[in-house]
């Protein structure tokens, strides 16, 4: 297991490195940073002075290393718009997005796993068809539109929920439903196909030949095996939720990092955009690494290899 995890860790570090290069490139692509820093009315000499003062006249690799070193120390640059450090801007918004992502994922799992299991035990039954339809639905519905429709129906017509803001947990209900529905289909399909494979496996037949009753066969033997890929896809989807929060946060005016990213992109405040991209990628990398650890814990074939 140690070898497996070390290998995974090495890959994660390498991927983090290449992601940081992409994030760095994104900032450079956005235009002349010196011009942005100096302001629109700066003279050519002033711009050059800013360029030299910020080290922007050095070769790109040197600039990258310099930037990466600072990023490792937690210095993710400064907002062009407000002058605040990007790291503290993100830190202030992170709790909202984390709440949103976790509640969405909880909803998605609560729906996807039982549906996937039931659908797999009764292929082509009505419940299988309904859950597949739900998956097609969740995959195809534009989440900005679904959010607006939910807002209209439950917030405006029925007045059950608040329609925007992030003051109470009730504010998170509609955004979580919106985002949860987008994460549900992949998890549902993975659970269903994993369970179908597991139920087809010889060891499930053995379990039944031992006289085990259905709940034990389903949970202890089939699901216990089918859950391995579900853990991985849940980590992937959780990462995707963070990225997808841009749309949902802007629809529901949630003041999280998605909203921050959107505002910063609109203001062409690229140091902040770069910091957010970097951070969301890192969280994704950490999540997939954690799911590797979880899989190793759950699967003796990896743990004892």
């Amino acid at each position: 297991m140690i070898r497996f995890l070390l290998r995974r860790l090495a890959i994660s570090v390498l991927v983090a490195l290449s992601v940081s290069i992409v994030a760095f490139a994104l900032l450079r692509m956005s235009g002349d940073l010196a011009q942005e820093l100096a302001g629109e009315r700066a003279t050519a000499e002033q711009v050059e002075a800013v360029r030299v003062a910020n080290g922007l006249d050095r070769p790109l690799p040197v600039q990258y290393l310099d930037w990466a070193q600072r990023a490792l120390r937690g210095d993710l640059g400064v907002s062009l718009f407000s002058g605040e450090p990007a790291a503290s801007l993100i830190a202030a918004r992170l709790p909202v997005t984390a709440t949103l992502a976790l509640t969405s994922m909880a909803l998605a799992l609560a729906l996807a796993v039982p549906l996937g299991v039931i659908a797999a035990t009764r292929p082509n039954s009505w419940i299988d068809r309904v859950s597949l339809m739900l998956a097609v639905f969740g995959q195809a519905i534009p989440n900005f539109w679904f959010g607006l429709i939910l807002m209209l129906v439950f917030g405006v017509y029925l007045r059950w929920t608040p329609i925007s803001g992030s003051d109470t947990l009730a504010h998170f209900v509609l955004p979580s439903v919106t985002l949860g529905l987008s994460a549900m289909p992949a998890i549902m399909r993975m659970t269903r196909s994993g369970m179908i494979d597991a139920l087809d496996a010889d060891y499930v037949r053995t379990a039944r030949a031992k006289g085990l009753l259905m709940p034990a066969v389903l949970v202890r033997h089939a699901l216990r095996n089918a859950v391995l890929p579900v853990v991985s896809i849940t980590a992937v989807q959780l990462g995707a939720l963070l990225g997808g929060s841009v749309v949902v946060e802007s629809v529901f005016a949630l003041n999280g990092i998605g909203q921050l990213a959107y505002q910063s992109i609109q203001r062409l405040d690229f140091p902040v955009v770069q910091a957010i991209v970097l951070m969301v990628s890192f969280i994704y990398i950490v999540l997939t690494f954690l799911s590797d650890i979880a899989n190793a814990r759950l699967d003796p074939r990896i743990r004892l290899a």
Partner: protein
Amino acid sequence: MTMPLLEVEGLRVTIDGPAGTLRAVDGVGFSVGRGETLCLVGESGCGKSLTALAAMRLLPRAARMTADRLAFDGLDLTSLPERALADLRGRRMAMIFQDPMTALNPVHTVGDQLVEVFDRHRLGSRAEGRDRAVRLLERTGVRPAAERMGQYPHQLSGGLRQRVMIAMALMGDPELLIADEPTTALDVTIQAQILRLLRELQREFALGLLLITHNLGIVARVADRVAVMYAGRVVETGTPSEVLGDPRHPYTRGLLSCLPGAGRGPRGSRLGAIPGVVPSLVGPVDGCLFRNRCGEAEADCATTAAEAPRTLAPGRIVRCLKAGVTA
């Protein structure tokens, strides 16, 4: 005469497919007495594994089953509710399978999988379950047993895994053991060991043993009685000396001629050296199904009467027009 442990009469298993209904098992009948070993022999695809699964009521969902009689110790298995069937499985009737590499659950330890049977059928405390598991592993040759208890299937060789399967089948102290090609997936040297183990355990535990195999060579060594299956039907039954020494069905003779040491056929070759192919079992069929591969077939073989069972002596049944004629 005492009641047989397992009685099968007129067993039919059909599988609906895109091309039509496949009649995989078509009117199979046999019985296994207490402490008796019956070998069910035939080529792969002849329906012998489905017959075994039907006896456990563990057929896959796609298969449908009917039987004139399917009874375990007088209990009608066709009408027993699923819960009562589950109470029998693992406790009074146990089964081991062909492929030990996939039959054990990869994520649970050997010990847990053994003790699970004990727990499920409430046979005693957990400690007693572990004791019994260790003893059975020891007996089946999975040593050192205490250490193996904590290991996972992927840490064991194929032969050891099949020994674990056998130990697991004995956890409930069953009266009937169904073994579906238990040695086919194993190395030749290990095949003999497992077979010897099964025969010893059968005597030790006074098991009724339904041993399913494609290997007639096994039959002489273990069977009390033999049933030869072809294309979903039992074509010949008898004692090993009757069936092997005086085969009355051309198919049985064909199988015998494929055995190493029986003249033709390379050493160690499996069955299937009989020319021709098994007919399609989709849709209704008439007459003897072996006639396209049979050197002695004649026009009458296509009639319904051709495949009617002929009883030569008690327990000696042959489905061939020429069954009376000695080869």
